[in-house]
């Protein structure tokens, strides 16, 4: 079955050249000093693990991921389930949910600035005086932004998953006397597990993109709660701390690898 390999070959060469090679360089740099001259072994890793900013960013990123993904997954599932029942208006709503994905980042930033500023529209509407971006709420603004953007996509994915469950199963269950919630937990959920894998991975990927908006709205040093790994990397780069950057990147990649492997394991079992 070697022919399969040839299909992959063109992509592989490019991937090696433009993705693996740079990554290999990053790994190499993590063991050297800034200018890449002196070998320093594990010193950079030591420094990074002891670095206060790194720990803060890591905890924020974990917190963000841990909050966002379950939230997004459940809200979109709920919306999908509800949507499935509706005819007519339902498909219009579906398309409307997708709109946020199409809005360019620059416009989103513009809007966020106007909405969440101390003198912004939100405060105006509800007569509040909260400085959203400079307080603990900043984290939740980011979460909201993420949810808003990715809701539509996940809803579609769920809907597709739901569509794949044969209605006969439900009918059979109803004949047996199962109520709505029972159906949901015993039939719907188990059959959606494959979709869950895809959706989780994609949502995870999209959570990294949240950085762009955060950065454009709040700059290099946002409120502490919003300070993510990418902010740190960005700043390390600006200060030419390339050695720490490389070590941090490898640690980041390792964490992601771990997560992906775990997910895969969980799914392979099914």
């Amino acid at each position, binding site marked *: 079955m070697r022919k399969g390999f040839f299909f992959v070959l063109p992509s592989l060469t490019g991937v090696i050249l433009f993705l693996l090679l740079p*990554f290999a360089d990053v790994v190499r740099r993590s063991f050297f000093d800034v200018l890449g001259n002196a070998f320093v072994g594990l010193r950079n890793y030591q420094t990074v693990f002891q670095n206060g900013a790194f720990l803060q960013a890591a905890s924020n990123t974990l917190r963000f991921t841990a909050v966002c993904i379950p939230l997004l997954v459940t809200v979109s599932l709920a919306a999908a389930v509800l949507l499935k029942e509706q005819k007519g208006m339902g498909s219009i709503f579906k398309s409307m949910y997708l709109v946020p994905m199409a809005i360019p980042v620059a*416009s989103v930033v513009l809007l966020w600035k106007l909405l969440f500023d101390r*003198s912004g529209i939100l405060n105006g509407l509800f007569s509040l005086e909260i400085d959203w971006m400079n307080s603990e709420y900043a984290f939740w603004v980011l979460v909201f932004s993420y949810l808003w953007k990715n809701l539509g996509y996940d809803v579609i994915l769920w809907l597709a998953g739901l569509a794949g469950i044969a209605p006969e199963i439900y009918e059979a269950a109803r004949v047996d006397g199962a109520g709505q919630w029972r159906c949901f937990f015993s039939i719907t959920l188990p059959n959606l597990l494959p979709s869950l894998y895809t959706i989780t991975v994609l949502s995870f990927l999209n959570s990294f993109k949240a950085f762009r908006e955060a950065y454009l709205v709040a700059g290099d040093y946002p409120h502490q709660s919003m300070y993510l790994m990418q902010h740190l990397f960005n700043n390390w780069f600006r200060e030419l701390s390339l050695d720490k950057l490389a070590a941090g990147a490898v640690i980041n990649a390792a964490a992601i690898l771990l997560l992906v492997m775990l997910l895969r394991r969980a799914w392979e079992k099914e």
Partner: protein
Amino acid sequence: MKGKLPMLLLGALAFLCCYPVLFLLTGTLMDNGELREALSPVVQQSGGAVTWRLLPRYPTLQHYLELLLDEPEFFVMFWNTVKLTAAILAGQFLIGTPAAWGLARFCFPLRRLLSVLYIILMMMPFQVRMLSDYLVLDRLHLLDTHAGIILPAVFSTFPVFIMYRFFRAIPEAILESARLDGAGVLQIFFYIGLPLGAGGIVSALVLSFLEYWNLIEQPLTFLKDKSLWPLALYLPNIGAEKAGTAFVSSVFTLAPAVFTFLLGKDYLEQGIAAAAVKE
């Protein structure tokens, strides 16, 4: 759940999602005075809060005209963005589709490893790769050229991941029967794989479109010559005078993305349906 409640909830959600577009559109139609008045609390910190009328008091097409006629850079950047996106999508289709097919339907050594690798590489944030990418591009003399943005993007593993799942969903039985009829590997790919996986391909392309239409970091770092910049870097400062232009350029940037969405929407749903079902 029965009754009007679900409809209301869903409707509210939909409104929330689309409100910003409405906001942008009305902003483009307001004249400078009104914009200044509305935005001054934020832009000039003049106290009070921003109030936004949904219907402008004095609607005007002034900003559209200004952008279309007075700002040549906008069009250069627009055309750059079109060029970049089209090239990247074409490349991803040519390179990524066979790769996804190969990973999905064939067994060969390293297949497992490669799939995992592709996923990991998909997740690398740009800041981490920035310097290394720069060095590689420098060696290849691709800096400050569009090719330096296009080529790395063409080999992105994200579309491969998406298409992979759709290709997996195609029942083996169909391929078996084709093979029995004497179809070769390539024929199977072209005549069965592509059509059946079309949903996946279009999904991947639509998602890629959105990603690259808004590309910011790579052009900022790798393109020095401003005449090569794409639209996402055209960000007029939001001073009160330029707010109108900011809104209009947002709308112009938004429009193609929305069009693409509308075009590919049905495919997106179809394709996702096929994939998400079977694993």
